[in-house]
């Protein structure tokens, strides 16, 4: 599979601030790629570089095989973008904005447009100034999803949507992927990214600190083990790769490196296992590890 998005060592500075500091990101064709990071990590700057709205200081960025700066106009025919902070012309109606943006991109699927307006329950005759944040986001989403393009760039697209609309959104994105199209989904809603993404990248201070499938990321992490034993366990902390061991009577909790599980389980069975729960690290734990906070 070739890459829908490929950036190598992207650097972008604003004055003295380094917004992107050698960002290398690869999004494969046909995948939904979660792009995770807290506010200010550089997610929006990355997207704007990918759109040729910002010019990177160094490094390369190609989207759908085209240079993001030089070939921006041609490239934009094949992608659709939903900004995080949707700002619409107050005098234009939602319907007008949808049509306008679609046409400027090179065409809109009229039937799809009608379906989406139905699904999202949007009144397209309202002037944009009368829309709430969520409704403005719907306008941008409909304009993007009704386009016949290969790639979607979404910048925190569900921040203003209610839970019902958010689940609609998830269905639509999975449908979209089912047609073999690609999505870069920037988000800080981890459950959303977890539910939708084939692969994930975590950005921190302008760099990708981890990338891969959730499984791959988990594989490198500690699994949390909780066990009820018949006897009080001893010697657990002596094992290498077992951490944060807490023993309360016959109750044990600990964090175990993936390769240490083989050593732990036989030892536990010598004490007699009544119940055991192993839990892979949640995305939140993975995420928080990168931001130097205690996992909960």
């Amino acid at each position, binding site marked *: 599979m070739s890459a829908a998005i490929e950036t190598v060592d992207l650097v972008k500075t604003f004055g003295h601030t380094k917004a992107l500091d050698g960002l290398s990101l690869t999004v494969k064709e046909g995948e939904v790629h979660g792009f995770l990071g807290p506010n200010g990590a550089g997610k929006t700057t990355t997207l704007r570089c990918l*759109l040729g709205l910002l010019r990177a200081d160094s490094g390369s960025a190609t989207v759908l095989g085209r240079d993001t700066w030089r070939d921006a106009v041609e490239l934009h025919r094949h992608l659709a973008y939903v900004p995080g902070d*949707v700002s619409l012309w107050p005098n234009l109606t939602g*319907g*007008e904005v949808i049509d306008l943006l679609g046409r*400027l991109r090179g065409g809109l699927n009229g039937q799809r447009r009608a379906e989406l307006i139905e699904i999202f329950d949007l009144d397209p*005759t309202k*002037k944009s*100034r009368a829309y709430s944040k969520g409704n403005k986001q719907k306008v941008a989403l409909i304009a993007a999803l009704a386009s016949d393009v290969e790639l979607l760039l979404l910048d925190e697209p569900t921040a203003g949507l209610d839970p019902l609309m958010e689940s609609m959104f998830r269905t639509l994105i999975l449908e979209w992927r089912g047609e073999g199209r690609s999505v870069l989904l920037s988000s800080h809603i981890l459950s959303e990214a977890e539910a939708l993404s084939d692969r994930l990248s975590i950005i921190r201070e302008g760099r990708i600190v981890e990338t891969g499938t959730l499984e791959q990321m988990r594989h490198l992490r500690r699994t949390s083990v909780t066990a009820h034993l018949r006897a009080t366990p001893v010697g657990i902390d002596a094992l290498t790769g077992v951490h944060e061991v807490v023993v309360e009577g016959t109750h044990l909790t600990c964090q175990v490196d993936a390769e240490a599980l083989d050593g732990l389980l036989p030892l536990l069975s010598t004490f007699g296992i009544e119940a055991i729960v192993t839990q892979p690290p949640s995305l939140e734990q993975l995420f928080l590890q990168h931001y130097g906070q205690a996992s909960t």
Partner: protein
Amino acid sequence: MNRFAGTLTLTRFALRRDRVLLPVWIVIFPLLTVSSASATVALYPDEASRIIAASAINDVPVAIAMYGRIWDPTSLGALSLLKLAAMGGVMIGILAIMLVTRHARAEEEKGRTELIGSAVVGRWAGLSAAVIVTCTAMVAIGALSAVGLTAVGLPAAGSWAFGLAWATTGMAFAAIAAITNQLTVSARAANAMAMIILAVAYLLRAVGDISSDESSPSVLSWFSPIGWGQQVRPYAGDRFAVLFLPLVFTAVALWAAFLLESRRDLGGGLLPDRAGRGTAAPSLASPLALAWRLQYPMLVGWLAAYVILSGIVGSIVNDLSGMLDTPEARRMVAALGGTDVMLDAFTAMEFAMIAFVTAAYGIVAARRLATEESDGHAEPVLATSVSRTSYLVSHLLVALVGTALLALAQGASFGLATAAQTGSMDRVGATVAASLSYLPAIWLMTGLVILLFGFVPRLTFLAWVLLVGFFLVAEIGALLEWPQWVMDTSPFAHMPKLPAAEMAWTPLVVLTILSAALMAVGAWRFRQRDLDTP
């Protein structure tokens, strides 16, 4: 909760936001007054020369329509501040309107009032702060003007009458803006509505003043806040009692505004927002169509105002030929910047002034690029397959075609109105050519906006500063005997002054090439730079 709670904090906040702009305006107005007065003082040393100059105004309906009547021909003060009574009233009215809207409706439209309203702030605090800041500025401008005028040797009573007339006129328009701010949802529309009322007020007193006799104007002038300011008659009776009219009007209008404020929702207006079309017109499919869609309502308004005002001036200009044929009047018009033939001189004078207004439209239209960008509206468009160049050209074309249409409307309406009076179409071609001949200078200002936009979009306001500078060069530069090189900096000074003078192609061609170059450099730079996103 007290509905005024938090007013003081918001006032201080508004002053903090305007800490540069507001002092500049507060200084510019008195400076303009004092410099224009001191120049006139030197021009008319004795009473006889003043009487001649005053009658040259009072005998000409067009001059009365534009500036008002001089109620005491012997008064030096009345003569020197004639232009600033009516025109200055308009300018101070515009300032008051913009200030109120900037701090009231514009804040609300951008959603900042909501944030503030959730704090311990009363419902009326925002509007109160806007009105307090504006009225304080008006009083400061009036007081500084009065002190300055007294300092250049004009009578103190008259100077204070003038300063207070200005201050109260400004306050009256602040109150009008406070009302229009309650009616519309957008700041743009609130401003436009108040400006229309301002234009009507100016016209009312123009018609009222023309039909006035020696001692009193017709009743129409008494319906206009600008008329009230003039009827205070600074240096020609100093009727301080008239000041109660604008003060009472301000109080009543503000009371109405606050009443309206309590009857509407936050963010809402009293005039309903109609539902629009559910799908875009088939033509709305290009950046140019979008620029046109965003800008045509304003252009249509400007065109209507141009046709009406030029038509009025054009139809009364015909009276001029008979009434101006006295040596004194000739000298007066010549002193105002005209040359040979009276009619041509007056036309050239009026067209030279209107060229600045047309240039102002060009600046507004081209600056839309900068506001679209800072409002975040450029981002979604440039994320589609629209090139930077075609995006820039879309709004630039509106500015270029818009200014050309305005010039055409002005010249044609002026010429046709004259033709309707004289029964001869002879002058129509000449007036159209005259108004169009200013386009190169007007486009140079548009080119400046594009150049600034290409490099630093936040600095496009500098085009306004330059336009005001060039206007001052044209209006008072000669009076104040500024050095020639200062006068030469203005592109408007190099235009051939049709129809009074001969056509000269060289400056037109040079300025057209220069403005095209500015636009090209600006467009080139815009392709290179980062988009400035909020």
